[in-house]
């Protein structure tokens, strides 16, 4: 569904991605694991069109989307749940959802908003409240709902569990599984290896801008995943 081939992305002189290749299969949850600074978020940003790769190609459903602008990528069916949620704090929950549908021009947007409120009753109760007054967990749900408003075929999620209490993390992962069961493909960046391996069909390890492993959760023991994922970071620190 999504094919990333040998992309190189850099900030100034520093190459954050040094030729990353991976693929996301339709209907699956694919996880990207790795230490801080390995380039996980950079990968997400590059797929979402916020960073332009210097080399390599990104294909989505057999169409080349390399270096296209974010609006085009959202319209082609990829939506991002950004790291740290980034909801619009002084806009109502309802308006936040409308921004998620910005790339759409059909007239079913309000229906979809109603559907989001059915799925996330806690948001329904807070429809007219400003998003900035929601708790961290509620904001994360809003960020997910907002991304879903674009009717994506592929949902990119960047560290959805970051900074959330364990119980909320459980709930977020339950939502991820539900969404996937309904047919949305998910590409997930996580630092919570334990939870990520529980939901993933497929996972990759990213270390220092390179993919060092790709396989299914059964292929490696969880301890070994953690060891291998973080060994690289031990050398740089």
């Amino acid at each position, binding site marked *: 569904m999504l094919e990333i081939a040998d992309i190189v992305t850099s900030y100034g002189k520093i190459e*954050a991605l040094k030729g990353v290749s991976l693929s996301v299969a339709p209907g699956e949850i694919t996880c990207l694991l790795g230490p801080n*600074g390995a380039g996980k978020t950079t990968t997400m940003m590059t797929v979402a069109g916020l960073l332009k790769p210097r080399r390599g190609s990104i294909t989505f459903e057999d169409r080349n989307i390399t270096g296209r602008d974010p609006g085009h990528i959202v319209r082609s069916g990829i939506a991002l749940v950004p790291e740290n949620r980034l909801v619009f704090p002084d806009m109502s929950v309802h308006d936040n959802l409308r921004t998620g549908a910005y790339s759409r021009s059909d007239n079913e947007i309000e229906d979809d908003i109603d559907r989001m409120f059915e799925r996330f009753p806690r948001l329904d109760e807070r429809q007219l409240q400003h998003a900035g007054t929601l708790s961290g967990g509620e904001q994360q749900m809003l960020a997910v709902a907002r991304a879903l408003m674009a009717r994506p075929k592929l949902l990119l999620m960047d560290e959805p569990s970051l900074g959330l209490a364990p119980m909320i993390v459980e709930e977020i992962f339950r939502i991820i599984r539900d969404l996937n069961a309904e047919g949305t493909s998910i590409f997930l960046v996580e630092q919570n290896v334990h939870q990520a391996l529980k939901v993933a069909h497929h996972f990759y390890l990213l270390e220092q801008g390179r993919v060092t492993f790709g396989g299914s959760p059964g292929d490696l023991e969880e301890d070994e995943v953690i060891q291998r994922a973080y060994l690289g970071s031990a050398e*740089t620190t």
Partner: protein
Amino acid sequence: MDDHVITVLNNIGGFSFIALSAYLLLLSGEISFGQQAFFGIGAYASGMFTAMFGLSFWIALPLAMLVAGLAAAAVGALTLRLRGLYFAIATLAFAETIRLILVATTWQVDVDGEPVGPNGSEGLGNIRWGFDNEYAPVDFLWMIYGSLGIVLLLFFLMERSRLGSIVRTIGADRLLAETQGINVTRYKILVAGLAGALAAIGGAFYAHIQTTVYPENFDVMLGVHSLAYGLIGGLGTAVGPILGVLLDVGFLEAVEWIQGYRMIAFGGLVAVLLIFMPRGILDERRVHLLRLMLRGRRPDIHGAAGH
């Protein structure tokens, strides 16, 4: 030296004071659009002291600095709560109020049969101290650059001492400064007062070289220019704002064919420069690198790869 060169050099020196004044406030995190008020207060106060009350310039100068410094500290205390653009606009409002009040005020006394003193938009004339004491423009040149040298030396010492890092910390993150035990209120008022006194030095010299000053000399153009000098020259060192003055007054003044299009040229130069160097030519990073090189160190100054 021919007279034109001396005039240009005097202007560079005079504007350097107000540029340093705006720079000092920039370090403490405040954008002031109102330093011209203290330049003006310095000019008027020193001019009134010498022309109306017959004081020597060397007494009038510190007195004018004191007056401007106190006024600036008072404004600083009143505007303590304000940040960013709010502070900038408040200082602008203050400066324009002062300027317009000078336009509306006439107060003249009789000196040797002539009325002397502020006369509304006609300004304050007859500041003859330099003339009476047979000071030539070149003498003022030495006085200006002597004072500028002292001020710069004080700036360098400040940057070396903790005072400099305190001011920069307040500028970068006020809450952090508070949790480091820094009494932000006190330092903010101190910095405002010092900046006001600094601008007054420039104003005093300006008044005594020009012999007549008008309220319109101290309009917002002067204030924003002084701010621009720091931003062009760079926020990493006190040399930055002076470099900015040099570029404007020195370079553009010197290039003949720019005359008549000077504002277009300077405006364009500033706009383009700020695109590529938003913190000026000598910004913190370049100054830091330069210092390391001077000390013969060249270690890993970049952290590992960013995120």
